[in-house]
């Protein structure tokens, strides 16, 4: 306000004064107008937020979407399992889900190495508009331009019907690794330093922390990659960083860490980073048993394919 008074005081021209006042008026009215529309839309969307704490909520990227059969898991545990896992989802989508998970529920979250290491421009980031989540991203070190881009992607999406029990639809199972054409991308993903890794993992940690504060029981799963990718990842700088993050979370949240080793005569990978239908079923069964065995602790599961 002082600034605008100063500018108006130094202007002799009536035309300039009138023009500046008009600009201030238009900007202020536009801001109020847009915020009012958003408030109304948010108010209307409140009723779409999930409220049942006696459900298991799932978030993850494509590895989770293709790697956990929510209906089968629901049957095994006798409790509804709803998923918001989707292809290409990123940490912003995770933060949106965190906001919408009811207190004291159970949440299965993937530990998405690929999402941490993927270029942000490839992240889905379309789970809705939430200023608080954008602020978390920004505070985690996400560049302002990226926050604005994400806000732009979500500006018309204010609806929190994110969790469903719809299962991934499989094409008929083929006993072969279908796609290997992205091998070089995966190699680069693990071996090259990624500037966005820090803000992505910081945002993710904030989301996990928020879940813990909401007394949500957190179950993390790290999915496997195909053997040739795992061989490269094993000694890579980025696997080292994600292992450090994993260790830190296990210590901080007193998580029980287990390994689920999938074994079968059939091939278990659909491509370089996703389980196939057989792998999904095997993992869901093993995971369900492990969940039944411990119903109290926060957990960290590392899935391997042998």
């Amino acid at each position: 306000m002082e600034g605008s008074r100063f500018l108006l005081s130094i202007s002799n021209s009536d035309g300039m004064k009138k023009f500046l006042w008009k600009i201030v008026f238009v900007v202020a009215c536009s801001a109020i107008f847009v915020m009012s529309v958003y408030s109304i839309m948010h108010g209307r969307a409140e009723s779409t937020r999930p409220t049942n704490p006696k459900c298991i909520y799932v978030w993850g990227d494509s590895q989770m979407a293709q790697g956990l059969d929510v209906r089968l898991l629901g049957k095994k545990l006798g409790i509804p399992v709803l998923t918001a896992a989707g292809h290409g989802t990123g940490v912003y989508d995770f933060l949106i889900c965190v906001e919408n998970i009811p207190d004291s529920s159970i949440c299965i979250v993937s530990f998405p190495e690929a999402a941490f290491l993927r270029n942000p421009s490839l992240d889905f980031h379309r789970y809705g508009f939430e200023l608080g989540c954008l602020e978390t991203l920004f505070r985690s070190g996400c560049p302002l331009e990226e926050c604005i881009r994400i806000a732009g992607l979500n500006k018309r999406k204010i609806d929190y019907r994110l969790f469903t029990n719809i299962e991934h639809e499989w094409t008929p199972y083929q006993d072969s690794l279908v796609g290997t054409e992205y091998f070089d991308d995966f190699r680069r993903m693990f071996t090259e330093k990624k500037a966005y890794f820090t803000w992505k993992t910081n945002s993710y940690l904030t989301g996990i922390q928020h879940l813990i504060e909401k007394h949500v029981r957190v179950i993390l799963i790290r999915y496997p990659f195909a053997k040739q990718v795992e061989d490269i990842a094993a000694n890579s700088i980025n696997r080292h960083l994600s292992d450090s993050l994993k260790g830190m979370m296990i210590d901080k949240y007193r998580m029980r860490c287990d390994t689920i080793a999938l074994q079968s005569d059939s091939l278990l990978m659909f491509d370089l980073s996703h389980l196939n239908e057989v792998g999904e079923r095997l993992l869901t069964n093993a995971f369900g048993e492990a969940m039944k065995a411990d119903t109290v602790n926060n957990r960290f599961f590392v899935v391997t394919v042998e």
Partner: protein
Amino acid sequence: MGNHEKFHTFVAANQTRDMLFNSIQFALFLPIVFLLYWFVFDRFIRKSEHQLRLQNAFVVVASYVFYGWWDWRFLLLIAFTSFCSWGSGLLIGRAETRKKAKLWTTLNIVLNLGILALFKYYDFFVTEFAQLFHISTDGLLLKVILPVGISFYTFQALSYSIDVYRGKIEPTKDIIAFFAFISFFPQLVAGPIERATSLLPQFLKKREFNYDTAVDGMRQMLWGLFKKIVVADNCAVYVDQVFSTYTEQTGSTLLLAAIFFTFQIYGDFSGYSDIAIGTAKLFGIKLMRNFNVPYFSRDIAEFWRRWHISLTTWFRDYVYIPLGGSRVSKGKVVRNTFVIFLLSGFWHGANWTFIAWGAYHAILFLPLILTGKNRKFTNQVAEGRVLPTLKESGQMLLTFFLAVIGWIIFRAESIGQAWEYFQGMLQFGTIRAIYRFFNWPGLWPTNLFIIIMLLVEWLSRDKQQGLSIEGFGMVFRWVLYFALILLIVFYGGQSVPFVYFQF
């Protein structure tokens, strides 16, 4: 790699640095520059005799910051071009004989076109030459990034030295004003391509703030943003999807995408021009009109008088008329017509598609000029009436359709792709595109935006810009402003770089 692909790769690499008119960087940059321009360099230094020079120097600094945001390394290039053109102007002015003046003019033309050719066309010619003679291009290609806006500011610099040679303008000694003329940021990277006779004198005299002009400028910017962000960017989503998978699409989808691209490129480029002209008005500078509702043209000749006016008049004044224009033998008229259309196509980029696009328009234009009907429609369509006659509607539709065909060639990555696209489009069922345009739920918002754009521009077709609505009531005006702002905020497509930046 095709031109569009190359461009998107380049833009993706620079995405965090660019300062587009629709970016947050520009939203911060513009008010700062505006306030400094009028308050610091106009108010505080009012008594100084150097006030005008300081204000111009500030324009140069602001423009270089704007340009350097993309890639600061190319600032040296634009400074070099500016300095050489300024120097050549002085040398032409001081030349004792006409022959010497011609020499300096030629040298400047060769220098400017040489730089342009090096950055824009060298790799293309080497590749084509190598293919023709089956030789390897290893080590021969430069693979340099195309400096943004090089075609625009090079042509602007050329116009100065030619106009000095022709005696249309006195050479200026004021190097700062000249640098401001070449680099003035609103029109630096995508035009309008200004003439020295029009823009340079504006930097040589004191600018006064004018309320009505500034408000008009803001309106024009708002309208430009609507055309760019709401119309063009939403069309781009559909167009990019279809063009990247054109072999799998049905004929109606291909035709629909071609129509959408026709509106995309118009919304994009005329939107940019509107923002540029509107921004310049805020600084008391008047830029030339670049588009005059081209899709309401009744024949191709009229279309070319209304599309990218600054470029077409440039070619007319500096190429076509010196070649004799239309006042020569019919054979030479044919030659001259092909020369300017092919050059115009080639100006857009080093790809055969642009040349083919130019040739296509030359073929459409030739019958009109040879029969003396190229200036049949010099007035505005449906002048003094609200609606056009049936005949006028038919003429406009036909011209629009011809333009759509041209844009397919323009948008394609290669001549082969354009040909395949046409083949795909001519499948049975193409007519369904018209039905689908109005009946596909997913496309409705975009269709509606196109209709709004056409409707507003139709109603203001005899005005200087789409949003010239001073005559309407205050309530109507403000409702319209806020409706447009709301549409820009909520319905702006994903940020797509301005198409013409690649040229």
